């Protein structure tokens, strides 16, 4: 990785680690200052990383997650397939429909059941609405990280509309526990479709205003454009996912490449950008929100008028011996569950692979060589939610 900083340094101070990062050697250690960012810091959340700075440049970064490691994977082994749902959605409570989506898909494969068509549509609608809720919260925090308070207030306000819709659908504000193996918990209420279309229409109007006040704001552009470049090849090597990957010019979206449930009937474009910088990483989720409105509209249109929304399971269902690996596209990228079953009613092993945990690998890569002031815009553009990464 070359940048202005490493060019300015003498080569005797530099060395390349086996990860391909160029770091400053011990010899110049006295020039460096070590800073600890987080876990109590307005710009880090429940996460800590140590950085070393040389003047204004970051020369070393070591992430230290785990402040919210609650042992979800171990807890799964002690609860049966249905009891696992409430605690599995806690890692991202503002995206809880998506995180239980792939769990349900995997368990359905193990139990050998198929979801009724109407149930599949309702699932997809709930997951699209929840994606908006997540992305709006993320955008609000990104706004306040960069000192743009309007961008905190607007998305958190508009987010409540989608929360209202989801509350009408599921009965809870954020923790829905809506997707269950076999379908969804209940049917949509009366008048939901009209209300949903109305809100989406309003929201699309608001998105234009967001673009004007935030994305076209010269200050925001200066702080994010050409900052934290993640070239295409690096993005592939580091295995990042979601908006970070799409911002590096790879149109990879699980909804498109491996459509689950009804997504193969929906006509939508995968949004991606080729500039590879923080601006692209901040703009791709915004484009996704717009596309998501479009998807929701199509889903509402194509949904069968009546029918079952779930299959009845016997209580305490037993999975067949084997394993399942399922993934969905969440707000933060591919979210996959690997479940091993030994034939009993509890999973033998559950491995959750989340977008946040994969994206954080890019953080040292991007921070080393950039300026300290760019840290907030690089860090939060990675679409990182610490609670989910720690599980």
């Amino acid at each position, binding site marked *: 990785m070359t940048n202005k900083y490493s060019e300015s340094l003498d080569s005797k101070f530099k060395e390349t680690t086996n990860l391909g990062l160029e770091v400053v050697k011990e010899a110049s250690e006295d020039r460096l200052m070590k800073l600890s960012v987080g*876990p*109590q*810091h*307005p710009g880090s*959340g*429940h996460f800590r990383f140590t950085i070393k700075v040389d003047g204004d440049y970051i020369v070393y970064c070591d992430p230290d997650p*785990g*402040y*919210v*490691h*609650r*042992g979800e994977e*171990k*807890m799964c082994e*002690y609860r049966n397939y249905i009891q696992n749902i*409430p*605690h599995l959605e*806690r*890692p*991202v*409570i*503002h995206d809880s429909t998506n995180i239980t989506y792939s769990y349900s898909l995997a368990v359905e494969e193990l139990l050998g059941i198929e979801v009724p068509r109407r149930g599949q549509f309702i699932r997809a609608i709930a997951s699209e609405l929840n994606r908006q809720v997540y992305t709006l*919260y993320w955008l*609000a*925090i990104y706004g*306040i990280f960069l000192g743009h308070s309007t961008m*905190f*207030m607007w998305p*958190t*306000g508009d*987010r*409540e509309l989608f929360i209202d819709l989801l509350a009408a659908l599921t009965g809870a*504000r*954020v*923790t829905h526990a809506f997707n269950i193996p076999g379908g969804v918990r209940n049917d949509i209420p009366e008048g939901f479709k009209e209300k949903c279309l109305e809100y989406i229409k309003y929201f699309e109007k608001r998105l234009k205003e967001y673009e004007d006040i935030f994305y076209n704001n010269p200050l925001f552009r200066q702080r994010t454009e050409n900052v934290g470049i993640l070239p295409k090849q690096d993005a592939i090597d580091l295995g990042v996912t979601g908006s970070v990957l799409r911002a590096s010019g790879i149109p990879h979206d699980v909804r498109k490449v491996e459509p689950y449930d009804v997504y193969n009937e929906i006509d939508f474009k995968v949004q991606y950008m080729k500039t590879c910088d923080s601006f692209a990483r901040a703009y791709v989720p915004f484009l996704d929100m717009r596309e998501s409105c479009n998807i929701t509209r199509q889903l509402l249109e194509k949904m069968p008028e009546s029918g079952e929304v779930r299959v009845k399971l016997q209580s305490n269902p037993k999975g067949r011996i084997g394993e399942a690996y399922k993934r969905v596209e969440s707000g933060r990228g591919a979210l996959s569950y690997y479940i091993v079953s030994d034939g009993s009613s509890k999973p033998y092993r559950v491995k959750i692979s989340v977008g946040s945990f994969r994206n954080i690998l890019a953080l040292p890569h991007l921070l080393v060589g950039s300026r300290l002031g760019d840290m907030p815009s690089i860090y939060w553009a990675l679409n990182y939610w610490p*609670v989910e990464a720690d599980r």
Partner: protein
Amino acid sequence: MLMIKDLINPANFNLLVSQVSDVLVGALDQPLGYAINWGRIWSLWPVHLETACCSVEFGATSSPRYDCERFGIIEAFGSLRQCDLIVVQGTVTRKMAPRLRMVYDQMADPKYVIAMGACSITGGLYIDSYNVLPGIDGIIPVDVYVPGCPPRPETLIQGCMLLQEKIKRSKIK
């Protein structure tokens, strides 16, 4: 009790300040106590310390719909040395616990603690996890418990108002 003569020594300056302030607080408590507490309750500054998923609802509490600022709870963006309220937003893991105590110790007196969410009260959903503390009252003293998983923003606002009530009735420190 030190003698007045010792206190005037410059080496003991901080002692002198504390003694004088004790006397002053004693004298002010009766006539001005109410006024000082009144000033405190309308400017509670929370620390920006997120511990788990309840922080999403804490964020929603400062959103335009709930707007807890109208009750004197300001959005959490200050430095912790200027803060007097710490809202523990959910699960405290064994890794976070020493940091939580460290943050609490660094805050200036008087300081108040709100335990938000089932996790910070008893461990909640994660009571049998290997890495979660069963409640935070073992590490820091709690003033108000706000139950829920996560508590709705209204619940948190009510918890804050209970805290204000509590401050109003206590002696000034």
